[in-house]
């Protein structure tokens, strides 16, 4: 389980490798919050390397999404497999986050100027 931060123009992409669960949610939150503190406002979380997310991981995304929106930014989720899409639909959190089929799609949807 690890996270990799990649800059794509003005967007910060966080690649999730493995699970996003109770054991690493604080690390994940800190990685994103550090970027918010540095001034980043456009975020994409790339789940192409992720197996599953538990309620703690979902909660971390909810918390971060709120924090980023309050700062005037946005958080998009990309490359979720069928299971993860099911999870977001089941919990209705697909209403909270734009879900993109690919990272490129998510990057292409960045707000103007980002």
């Amino acid at each position, binding site marked *: 389980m690890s996270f990799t931060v990649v800059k794509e123009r003005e967007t910060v992409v966080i690649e999730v490798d493995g699970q996003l*669960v*109770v054991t690493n949610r604080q690390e994940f939150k800190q990685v994103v919050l550090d970027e918010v503190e540095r001034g980043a406002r456009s975020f994409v979380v790339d789940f192409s390397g992720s197996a*599953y997310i538990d*309620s*703690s991981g979902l909660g971390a995304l909810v918390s971060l999404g709120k924090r980023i929106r309050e700062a005037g930014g946005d958080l998009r989720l990309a490359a979720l497999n069928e*299971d993860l899409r099911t999870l977001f639909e089941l919990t*209705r959190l697909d209403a909270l986050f734009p879900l993109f089929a690919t990272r490129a799609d998510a990057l292409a949807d960045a707000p103007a100027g980002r």
Partner: protein
Amino acid sequence: MAMRVPRTKAAAALSPHQPLEWTIASDVLAIERVVEGVVGLCTASGFSAKQCRFNIPIALTEALANAIMRGNGSDASRSVRIRSSVQMTRDGATLNVDVTDEGAGFDIDTAGCTPDAPDWLEREDGRGVFLMRSLMDRVECTRASDLPGNTVRLVLHRA
């Protein structure tokens, strides 16, 4: 972390009928190995790929995290016991996982909330019980009269 896996450590080589038992400290870092063991048992018992990669890991992670953090309050002096078994029948197989904490107890029926709660899209925590109930066929909570703690039982029929 005290971990006890009876008879063999190789999950892939387990008989599907062989139960697995662990006693772990109240540390979320212990969750992953238990999940791997139960998934190995279910894989060997012919549960579907989706059940093994999705339903079981998520629901069991929720039950263990609940026992460690909510039941035991992350108190390092308290343990969590896990007993996992698969009952094979002529028509299929059923996974039973008992997760027992040593805490003061809580009511799983009032723990957490559902997507109909007004703050569902805002709150960081409280989705674990909903996920367990959504991903398992049955979730039960029992409390022995003479022992501390709760037992949460997860039940899943083989797809």
